[in-house]
């Protein structure tokens, strides 16, 4: 017996109507993990980096990569998008409205299949009428573009995936 897409949909519906926040189902070597948006995130976060946390006097000077919680799984904010095998995400460097093209009606900066270099512009993020160009930051081929034109993207949200050279 194996789960069909219809089964999963039914399970989702059951969870939706229940008072539970998560469901782990394991059967016939298949595992389904369902979580309500954001549920259980704090508890699921790795209990690591406690000792790595800098003392507060040095905290404000700590680089972003030292943020202990940045390693925590996505929680209540945007849902993570699964990367196509062998690809890396180009993420939004700030929150704003994402545009794939320089102007409405013009062709997008990049399409799936396009080759990019680190300084290739892949889109624009608008913050209160201020246009910020976003660059690929790596060399390779664009394999997917999950971010939608004209929609809000959050800091760290995936804009597109690149298979690096």
């Amino acid at each position, binding site marked *: 017996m194996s789960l069909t897409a219809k089964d999963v949909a039914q399970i989702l519906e059951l969870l939706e109507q229940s008072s539970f926040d998560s469901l782990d189902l394991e059967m016939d070597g298949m595992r389904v993990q369902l979580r309500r948006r954001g549920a259980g995130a704090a508890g699921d976060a790795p209990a690591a980096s406690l000792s790595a946390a800098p003392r507060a006097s040095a*905290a404000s000077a700590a680089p972003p990569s030292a943020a202990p919680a940045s390693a925590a799984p996505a929680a209540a904010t*945007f849902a993570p998008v699964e990367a196509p095998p062998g690809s890396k995400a180009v993420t939004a460097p700030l929150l704003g409205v994402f545009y794939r093209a320089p102007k409405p009606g013009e062709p997008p900066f990049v399409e799936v299949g396009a080759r990019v270099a680190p300084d290739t512009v892949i889109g624009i993020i608008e*913050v209160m009428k201020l246009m910020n160009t976003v660059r690929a930051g790596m060399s390779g081929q664009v394999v997917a573009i999950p971010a939608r034109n004209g929609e809000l993207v959050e800091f760290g949200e995936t804009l597109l995936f690149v298979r690096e050279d």
Partner: protein
Amino acid sequence: MAIHRVLIANRGEIAARVIRTCQRLGIGTVQAVSAADRGSLPARMADRALCIGPAQSAESYLRIDTLVQAALSAGCDAIHPGYGFLSERAPFARRCEEAGVTFIGPTAAQIEAVGDKLRARAAAEAANVPVVPGGAVHSLDEARALAERIDAPLLIKAVGGGGGRGMKRVDHLNDLPIALDMAASEAGAAFGDARVYLERYVARGRHVEVQVLGDGRGQVLHLGERDCSVQRRYQKLIEESPAPGLSDDTRAALCEAAVRFSQRLDYRGAGTVEFLLDVDTNDFYFLEMNARIQVEHPVTEQVTGLDLVALQLAIASGEALPLRQRDVQRKGWAIECRINAEDPDNDFMPSPGRITAAQWPTGEGIRIDTHIEAGAFVPPYYDSLLGKVIAHGADRADALSRLRAALAATRIDGVRTNVAYLARVLADAEFCAGGVDTGFLARYGSKA
């Protein structure tokens, strides 16, 4: 104009506090979070959370345009700034005004008026509110003349300072020229404003503040006073309402002075007028106004039964004040303790980390405002406030015994906290007697 959805431009316990009231009122909530707060309780309580930037506040909670953009894109018609961060930055209020998003707080002009300590002093004088003897000085000669009139010891204060920042004490008038030079250059570096003013130093003072609410059209009422004299390096630790040992006359005079001051500004929203109460003379002086909700607002809520965040929302939506002064009834006594992630055995060094267990007390008259639960992470980037334990009782002794029991039942593991330290302070004879001055905790520290 009714508010339908609020962006919370803050974090921690106050974010959770604001969301609770919004939910009770059926108002939608969008929580702005930094990357370090994505898994936080407010992020999960809100209808939606938006990641606005990396952990450092300068790139997230202090980004005016990002926050306003987030509000617009998420369909929010209002922004609640909480306390700290951008809550008292006039450019933020102005940007909201320009973008057509309601700033839940005073106008940009009012924030500017109280942010400039000299302007605030002048407004207080104009409203017939006593200020500490002193004033602005533009030259050394002027300073000398004024200093001789008010006499040493005195304080040199930065116009752009506040909350204990940018102050210098002068014990002998001979030291004035050097101290003045230093104070001006430090103020210039710290606040981008080298202007300073002089004030008489009050040796034994209590910090007593008055909660006000204004409708922005000249109607102002007060919700009584709070005593916040238990401070460590100007950081309040224990607050209570009413203030112990005040005569009815002094209490009434304080509250009326706060109302006069706020009326003069046509103040809009919730605000706090802070006074210095001279223990030796019983005179009080205007210190400054905080144009936001205060950390310690729950003690006022517990004695008045009012929801200050709900009142902020009502005022921001342009409604008339939903109550009159005579409707404000005060019952009993409330005391609040701030639980911080800090190490009292190590000079109160902040102690960030993962909370492994969190057991908050419950019981008659106990209220907990917190965002901390087991598994929560206390990032090293922000203040160390974990939560507030507030006890309400029939009188001070009742509130105090409830608070002691509550602290004894509080267990936070994974980080260092000041819970045991607070319990010891609550047992101190001087504190129990009531009415300590702002030097109490420093004296307590040296005898402990």
